[in-house]
């Protein structure tokens, strides 16, 4: 008997389609596993057990009635709490939104519902997606399934941990500076930040509007592609949404499984994202992966992106500036918690101040203050203006690189998962952790992280980041699926099959015994 929770979404979809299993069974298996491991992992802020089972039953009934359903119909999914859901609390990891249930669904949530996926619940995150560890969640951190004393990455640590801990086969994340890719890297899962404008942001609680992008969090490249096809495409409610007719990402991923898919593919290694500050085991696995790629026929060369050295500085001006304005609406007037000042008159200004003081965490306040300062009269040109110029320079670096190569690669993160508390006292160290992922957001190009092994020194997952030109998301999927196949063939197993068992459950029991 094959366990339902360690199946890929693609495999589950097949079992559901041919009637081998019901969505209720699949959903219940995941909910039971959530119950078992959540005390350790804390990936979820809200689990919608009854609603999930009811939705699954409806999908089963429709399938039984002969209705033609979408490819992922009946497959469970976890949703990052940054996304508005009309039937579940949506807090963005913040106390200021505690208990808030939006009157509407984000476009991507509506699309997964329309595609008959089964929402299991909402996943934990750094407050308002500000962080790289989920330690900034107002509801306590999520633990890395590989080592419960370590961070699962952030801000989307909840979605990555949920997938890595087999609590859900699929999850939705959002990526402003690496919040999908870095958690994927440190949890051994797959995460994709699509081209800016490729997936609707409507209903995604904004951190930095010009950088945010919603994307898939999964255990395989093919699963990410399947989910991307569900959530992607033009949305008139998001003015920055591209009107392109997108190719099938699923077909692109499947193309990567063909023999010789890597032959002649030109891979650029970004010199500036492969040097000092990278953990030895991360560098080692990266070099090994490059060697495997060369052996498979890919043409690997080094490219330079000289302006990347300014990326983190520019990012930490643009992000706080936009965030300071985006977060202004949290004022207690229309939604969210309201806190009255302890003494003195109850004016709206004083109630707003008291609410924001009590409702926002330190990191959020830090970035609001930074952003407010950066936008202030007299400083705008020096800070926000200059940062936008850096952004243009980084876009040019990417354009120049993509003139020479088809795809760019780097380690997704400089290190493996760090321990709780290691960087919370040093915001700069935390910010620098995003050095590899930030440039893609600044340039609006798509990026993917997929597992490339365990660092020998700590046995923790290491991620490979792949970047493609804007709108070339399909190229990521073809290449990503090929690399994944190459590496798994090399290892002889999937990376996540090496993760320690979290609960007293035979997760990988097969007819042939435990793998």
């Amino acid at each position: 008997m094959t366990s339902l929770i360690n199946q890929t979404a693609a495999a589950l979809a097949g079992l559901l389609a041919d009637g081998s299993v019901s969505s209720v069974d699949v959903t219940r298996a995941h909910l039971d596993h959530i119950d078992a491991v959540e005390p350790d992992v804390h990936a979820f802020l809200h689990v919608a057990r009854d609603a999930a089972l009811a939705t699954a039953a409806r999908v089963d009934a429709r399938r039984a009635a002969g209705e033609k359903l979408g490819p992922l119909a009946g497959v469970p999914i976890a949703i990052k709490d940054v996304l508005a859901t009309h039937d579940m609390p949506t807090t963005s990891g913040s106390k200021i939104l505690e208990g808030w249930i939006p009157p509407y669904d984000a476009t991507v949530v509506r699309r997964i519902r329309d595609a008959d996926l089964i929402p299991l619940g909402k996943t934990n995150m750094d407050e308002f997606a500000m962080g790289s560890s989920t330690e900034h969640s107002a509801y306590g951190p999520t633990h890395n399934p590989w080592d419960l004393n370590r961070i699962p990455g952030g801000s989307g640590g909840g979605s990555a941990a949920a997938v890595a801990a087999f609590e859900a086969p699929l999850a939705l994340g959002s990526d402003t500076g690496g919040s999908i890719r870095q958690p994927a890297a440190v949890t051994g899962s797959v995460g994709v930040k699509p081209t800016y404008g490729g997936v609707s942001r409507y209903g995604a609680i904004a951190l930095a509007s010009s950088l945010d992008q919603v994307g898939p969090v999964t255990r395989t490249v093919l699963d990410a592609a399947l989910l991307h096809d569900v959530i992607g495409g033009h949305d008139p409610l998001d003015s920055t949404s591209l009107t392109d007719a997108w190719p099938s990402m699923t077909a692109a991923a499947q193309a990567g499984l063909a023999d010789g898919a890597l032959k002649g593919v030109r891979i650029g290694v970004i010199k500036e994202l492969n040097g000092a500050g990278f953990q030895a085991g991360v560098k080692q696995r990266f070099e090994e992966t490059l060697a495997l790629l060369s052996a498979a026929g890919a043409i690997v060369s080094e490219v330079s992106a000289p302006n990347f050295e300014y990326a983190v500085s520019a990012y930490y001006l643009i992000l706080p500036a936009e965030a300071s304005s985006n977060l202004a609406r949290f004022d207690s007037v229309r939604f969210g918690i309201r806190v009255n000042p302890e003494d003195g008159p109850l004016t709206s200004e004083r109630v707003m101040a008291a609410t924001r003081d009590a409702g926002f965490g330190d990191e959020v306040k830090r970035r609001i203050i930074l952003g407010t300062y950066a936008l202030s009269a007299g400083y705008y040109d020096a800070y926000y203006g200059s940062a936008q110029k850096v952004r243009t320079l980084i876009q040019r670096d990417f354009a120049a690189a993509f003139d020479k190569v088809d795809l760019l690669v780097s380690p997704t993160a400089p290190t493996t998962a760090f321990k709780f508390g290691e960087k919370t006292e040093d915001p700069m160290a935390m910010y620098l952790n995003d050095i590899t992922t930030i440039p893609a957001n600044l340039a609006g190009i798509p990026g993917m992280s997929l597992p490339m092994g365990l660092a020998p020194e700590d046995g923790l997952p290491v991620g490979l980041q792949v970047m493609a030109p804007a709108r070339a998301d399909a190229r990521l999927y073809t290449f990503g699926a090929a690399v994944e196949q190459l590496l798994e063939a090399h290892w002889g197993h999937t990376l996540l099959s090496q993760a320690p068992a979290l609960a007293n459950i035979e997760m990988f029991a097969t007819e042939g015994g435990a793998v």
Partner: protein
Amino acid sequence: MAKAELMDYDKALELFEPVLGFEVHVELNTKTKMFCGCANEFGSGANTNTCPTCLGLPGGLPQVNRQAIESSIRLGLALGCEIAETSRFARKNYFYPDTAKNFQTSQYDEPIAFNGQLTIELETGRLVTVDIERAHMEDDAGKLTHMGGAAGRIQGADYSLVDYNRGGVPLVEIVTQMIEGGEADSPEIGKTYVAAIREIVKALGVSNARMEEGNVRCDANVSLRPRGSNILGTRTETKNVNSLRSVERAVRYEIQRQAALLHAGGTITQETRHWHEDTGTTSAGRPKSDADDYRYFPEPDLVPVAPSRAWVEELRATLPEPPAARRKRLQADWGFVNLEFQDVVNSDLLDVLEATIAAGAPAQAARKWWTGEIARLANAAGVSADSLVTPAQVAALIELITDGTLTDRLARQVLEGVIAGEGTPSEVVASRGLAVVSDDGPLIAAIDEALASQPDVLAKIRDGKVQAAGAVIGAVMKAMRGQADAARVRELVLERAGSAAVEPAPSGSGE
């Protein structure tokens, strides 16, 4: 609050030169709001025309209303502005409960329209050209109602209610350059300028242009410069002056108030001021400095607006004749003297008059009916004249007078019938049997009878005392129930009196 000292207006002008500036907000009459699909509608239940976007809910995103862009471009063109090839929205950040997002989506350094001009004509015939700095698009705020406390003011209120129905309604803000040299005409310049803007947006059809509903709102900037100085004085900005007369009064008041203050050695605080319609005064609002920091930055949730030149030219071709030019042309065409024409303009009857004349009515007759009988009936009913009858109906009525079917007196009865919904003027004439009797037969019979019954009058007429005929004419008109042409009756009375066919009734025949 102590009542401000005011300086005599003439003395103020003697000592100081007023410098003006106006910001006029025009609410566009698009079907939906600026950045979402909610209805742009006045008078709905509180917070019913709202959605995640205009309520500023987490995750809400704006979408630009194309109709609002079109209206803004047309308004910009009508103000002689250049239309930007690319124009961007920006966020104006400030916290206030009526602003759902706690930033206004406005335009900052890249407005849709800029560098325009508007020439206005004062009552003396003086022409003043107002330079328009820019016309930019933005979204309106919600409406706060302060409950409890004094007179709905925020001071002393127990709590406040906010209605976001207006939040997100599209506005165009028209900003003038400094207006110098207005001198004693300054208050009138303010009134006339706002009236001209109102007239233009109405002619364009881009706004309902009702100042009483806040469709057109004026902020008036006034500063005084001492005679002989070339240094600008500190300005005040009187907010939301919402009638033409108030604009005039507010400018005048600020000139007098500031002059008194400056003359007494005081200084003007740069601030916003509230206009009080009831007392005709302004009071201090919040301090405002040029360093007010709204932390503007380009709105990242919207892409730039880049209207193609072809579209702009297409829109330019749809512009109506400028209202001032149109007035000049119509007055000349119609041959009205100034007083007559002003009467029409002030009564807001230009459009109906033009339509009535276009339908074939002579200009003077059309004017006489609209500003006379129809205006009187409208006044009495408390409605607008053009809601009572159509220009076509009035033209038809006038046609019936011209061709002799109706006298003015009969025409008034027909008008009543038309207003009562009895049909077209001709139908009312037929159904009420109101046409002038133009057949001499019945008239002669009535005249003969009247003359016969008044032998003394007949004798007087025969003696050459023609004026005695009046009594007979009156009797005949009465017998004809007014449906006779009095001039013709007179003619016939004299003719019949001279005829032997008419004999006084034998005395004693009356019973």
